[in-house]
């Protein structure tokens, strides 16, 4: 049966154009997200079965809880002591795998005081479901 091919070509063209648009937007957004601020405070994040340890620049350590202040940028250096984990503060779209033998980077800048959940998002064994922590954002002026 003869049929005209042009609707198919237009359709494929539209799909390709849409994909180009999605790709370009994603590229631009990711480029901005991956631009680390130079004055960011470094926090070393270590995952192990089944809790998180945080080490601030001044050497203070916290387990399971992380205290940060509004108006500052923080750069996490994420690694693991045993198996793969994934460091996640969902409310701030912070997600980076903690892999033994590697140090991965991710940054964020909290803007409002409050409490947020920290969780592990990569399967890491028995208590993976409860490898949770708290992010406490404080307002230094108050």
């Amino acid at each position, binding site marked *: 049966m003869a049929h005209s091919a042009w609707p198919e070509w237009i359709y494929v063209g539209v799909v390709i154009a849409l994909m180009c648009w999605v790709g370009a937007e*994603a590229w631009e957004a990711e480029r901005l997200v991956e631009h680390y601020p130079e004055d960011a405070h470094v926090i070393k994040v270590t995952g192990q079965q089944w809790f998180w340890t945080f080490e601030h620049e001044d050497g203070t350590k916290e387990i399971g809880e992380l205290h940060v202040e509004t108006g500052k940028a923080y750069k996490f250096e994420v690694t693991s002591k045993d198996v793969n984990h994934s460091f996640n503060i969902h409310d701030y779209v912070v997600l980076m795998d903690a892999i033994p033998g590697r140090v991965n980077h991710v940054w964020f800048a909290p803007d409002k005081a409050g409490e947020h959940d920290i969780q592990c998002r990569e399967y890491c064994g028995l208590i993976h479901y409860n490898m949770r922590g708290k992010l406490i954002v404080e307002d230094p002026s108050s």
Partner: protein
Amino acid sequence: MVLELQKPRPIWQIMFSTHHTDVGLLYLIMSLGFLFLGGALALAIRAELFLPGSQIIGDAMTFNRMFTVHGTTLIFLFIIPFASAVGNYFVPIMVRYKDMAYPKLNAIAFWLIPPAGALIWLGFADFTWYATPPYSIISAPGPAADMWIFGLKILGISSILGSINFVVTIMRCKHPDMSLGQVPLLAWSFLTSSLIILVAMPTFAAALLMLLTDRLGVSGFFNPAMGGDPIAYAHLFWFTFHPEVYVLVIPAIGMMYEIIPRFSRKPIHSYQSGITAFVLLSIVGFSSWAHHMYATGMSFTEKTVFMVGTLAAVPASALHVFNFVATMWNSRIRFSTPMMWAIGGIALFFSAGAGGVANAAMPLDFTTHDTYWVVGHFHLFVMGTIAFGSIGYLYYMYPYVTGRMYNETMGKVHFVMSFIGTVMVFFTQHVLGLYGMPRRIYDYPPIPEWITMNQIASIGAMIIGVSMAIFLANMIYSAGKGKPANIEDPFGVGGRYYYPFEAKNPHH
């Protein structure tokens, strides 16, 4: 066509047969058995997640083992063997050959699967279907983990043997009067998916061997404590298993290419674009594997390359959707059960694909990665597209296999309930993922949104469960007591189009 079940035959005659329809029947029955086993695990998982706290599964380890075996079973012991069943029945007939090219190899490929399934089920490993190192090396309890590795090794050999057989049957044994450009699209789908397996599978076979020796402590390929790198495993695994996604989905699309023109009573809109899309998918399927690994600390450039590679698969998939819709356009559709499954499958294929575009976009992936969004996304493929296409095709081939008709009303009820259930479970899981619930967790904190959405998903899963019970009753009852089918035209669509079923290969 086959009417295997019309006259009683001793079971050993089917078991030791190398005839393609007998081997197809074995594949069919075994894959459906594993569908129900894997599905039962899914129901248990959903029941557990209905509320925070422990519900029916006593401890986290059992839960972890259950979702591992659930995934492994439904991918390797249901979807792939089911496709092999359809391929065994139809590919030789469609290329007009008396059997598969290597009948004995065909039987061996089948008989490797039951022991592999037994290893996986008796071991009941807990390290997810991805067997992620270093967890799988230093932390996962044996012998379950080792049994899983051996099981997968055997399944890999089986699928390589099966693929060689399909490729040779189609390329070398097709009727001399038939050019490759005349081979039906269902057979084309087996040709392309088999070629993908032949290119992709050896990589994972190597990775599995390395994983095993790492577990035994004699090597340290993926063990950082011995200087290895777990990310290397991730690359090897996804180099096989992203293309494997297309291995799963392409035969299901091929099955829809049989169903949709038949019940639209119209030839397929464009045979050429179907072939083009199959070939394109099987090539670009190899350019996207590391989109599973954005969060492992990949550089911006790497992520960009794999995002482009992933988005490149979208136009090819979209060609299939266009082809189906254009075929149904302005046609006299007969909404029999197989057609309803195929149309539902296309709708969910489109939804799954749209979600996939969001995953591929780098910044969005960091929101969705390893959350329930991903679970919802790939289940829309494996359940919504592949299982829907497969079950539709099972209803379609039912009269030709048994000589009897299934109960049409029960078939439609099965479809409607499964469709509603699938939307309830997997669309909800997308939203649940946006609220941040990680996948693979046994228990969750009592966050009100999480509870509500988990409950919607669990109820949806129970609806699917009930519909599958109806399906099982229909299949078993109708095989013995159903109305005898009119083999010339069992669905009453008119016989103007090519039916491969007129052919029957004699047993040997």
